[in-house]
């Protein structure tokens, strides 16, 4: 039962990372580096929570989170595609803006509580020992994240549009010369990434915890960015990384609970230290081979 409880919490800790990172993976595959995941995520958390309180519906809350994330991403798109601005700096600006705006929007809702998103209950299946709750007793977000994983994999490797998106990410000049609409594809990718980050944020305030606090994403957006690097821009490796990270997060919480005399702050910083270790290991093993060719470089079409 203990193992089952841990597994359940690992899944809930991993789901927001998986959703946000999948969106960013598509963005980066199109050649754009959006460092504003943290900002879009925290906006999703705040707007999602406020909308859910006002309407009383978790689904509308999640939808509001998606819209908020995408709206913020639209600003990023205007900057980096419209004005060919520096992507690193624009992403940082997005993070700052998102942290501030989410605080303003959520200010009146600090301290409010609501019931977290309901979990699936299928007669006969959810009651199965061990695998029942893990496979058939999650909330809707978890299933949505898995659907997203399959969808993104299928889209990138099994559709023409996905192929075009990857080609644009590797060499926008050639893709443009072939008549593909580089900026339009990148715009859609950025909006998709924003929506995913917003959904991930909404998960935090609607399912992971029953409340909203300022800055509640606590660096998860940045960890999602690191996971994309870890995955070498391949979705299934991303899923693996997300669940590993969820496991580290939960494990450190449990170790803190045992009271082994290890400072709680050291345990709390483990996910961040692990991120650094993973980045080092993966960058060393891979070099720059798998990185989308034009990642981070603005493209200005010569009309």
């Amino acid at each position, binding site marked *: 039962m203990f193992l089952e409880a841990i597994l359940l919490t690992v899944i809930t800790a991993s789901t927001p990372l998986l959703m946000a990172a999948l969106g960013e993976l598509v963005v980066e595959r199109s050649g754009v580096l959006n*460092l504003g995941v943290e*900002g879009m995520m925290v906006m999703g958390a705040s707007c999602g929570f406020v909308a859910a309180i006002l309407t009383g519906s978790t689904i509308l809350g999640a939808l509001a989170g998606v819209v908020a994330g995408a709206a913020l991403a639209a*600003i990023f798109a205007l*900057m980096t*595609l*419209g*004005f*060919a*601005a*520096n992507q*690193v*700096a*624009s992403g*940082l*600006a*997005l*993070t*700052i*803006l*998102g*942290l*501030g*705006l989410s*605080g*303003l929007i959520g*200010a009146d809702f600090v301290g409010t509580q609501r019931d977290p998103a309901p979990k699936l209950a299928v007669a006969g299946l959810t009651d199965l020992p061990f695998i029942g709750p893990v496979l058939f007793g999650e909330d809707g977000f978890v299933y949505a994240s898995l659907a997203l994983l399959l969808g993104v994999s299928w889209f990138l490797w099994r559709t023409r549009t996905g192929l075009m998106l990857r080609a644009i990410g590797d060499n926008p000049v050639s893709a*443009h*010369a072939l*008549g593909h609409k580089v*900026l*339009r594809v990148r*715009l859609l990718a950025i909006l998709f990434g924003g929506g995913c980050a917003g959904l991930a944020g909404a998960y935090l305030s609607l399912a992971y915890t029953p409340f909203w606090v*300022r800055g509640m994403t*606590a*660096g998860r957006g*940045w960890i999602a*960015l*690191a996971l994309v*690097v870890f995955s070498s821009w391949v979705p299934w490796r991303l899923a693996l990384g997300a669940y590993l990270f969820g496991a580290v997060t939960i494990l450190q919480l449990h170790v803190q609970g045992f009271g082994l005399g290890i*400072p709680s*702050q*050291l345990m*709390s*910083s483990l996910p*961040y*230290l692990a*991120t*650094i270790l993973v*980045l*080092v290991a993966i*960058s*060393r093993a891979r*070099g*720059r081979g798998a990185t989308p060719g034009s990642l981070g470089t603005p493209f*200005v079409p010569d*009309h």
Partner: protein
Amino acid sequence: MPIELERRSEPSRAMMLASPAIAVVLTIAAAAALLAAVGVNPLRGLAVYFIEPLGTSWSLQELAVKASPLVMIAVGLAVCFRANTWNIGAEGQYLAGAMLGGWFALAYHATGAWWVLPGMLLLGALGGVLYALLPAVLRVLFGASEILTSLMLVYVAQFALDYLVRGPWRDPHGFNFPQTVTFEPAATMPLLLSGGRLHVGVLLALLAVAVAVVFLGTTLRGFELRVVGMAPRAGRFAGFDDRRDILLAFAVSGALAGLAGIIEVAGPIGQLLPNLSPGYGFAAIIVAFLGRLNPLGILVAGFVLALSYLGGEQAQIALRVPLDLTIVLQGVLLFCVLACDTLILYRVRLLRLRHRTVPGVP
């Protein structure tokens, strides 16, 4: 995209000067709109935010006190950004400097010796350097993204500080508050004027600007950093070692961030607390860009951002405006700066979608 960019034959000099000014004007307009949105008379709000803080000698001193860490950190970041390396963990290096320098103050507490303060400043800078070299070394040796590692280290530094002030360094007579003892006079920055908090650290920030003007403008190493940043291939052909330049850029920015941290601790704060910075390390990124990565520009930009902090505090008290409004404005400002910088290299045309033809499409 209804916007079309046309590259100028050469960068516009007029726009180099005008773009930060346009960005500030746009941000003020956004501020008026935001104030109206939270139910405050925009004119009254703008006056509280941007004019009233300039009114008294006390608040002018306060402005300089808030501007100096921003300027100091941003000057270092400008060195980094010019070399196209992305140190976005200045907040962590600031805390590392505060911790190592603060340790010295605690270790030699009650000695009253003259060398305590210089030692603190030295160790503060050293702490920043060491903490900044971590991501730089990982980048140089393993190719790990310095953006992500330097940012992760911010969280780690915050936890480390939290541990120290709640655990081993806590003031035993502090009623269990998470704080160290208050530093003795020999470990605090001397004040420059009475009736305010203006301290010697402000002069050190000015010194940093002056040194950076000379270093970036007149030395070969300063030129090298810029070449490596703008055209790494050309830099390698010229025999510049880009790995050494990354380490150098991080060390410089870490030193300045660490120094800013210990000055803040030895100056206005006077002890170590769990919360030592209202986000100076991140706001300094905005300062660096608003100052167009130029030390003198950064000096001006530092005061603009300091004004937003000071005005934000005033607005919170006088108008009950949430402090987050300031952060929103800082984000808007960075966006405006980046968008306006485009005007230097490009002419921007707004297109009517209907009349556009796209050549080259079969």
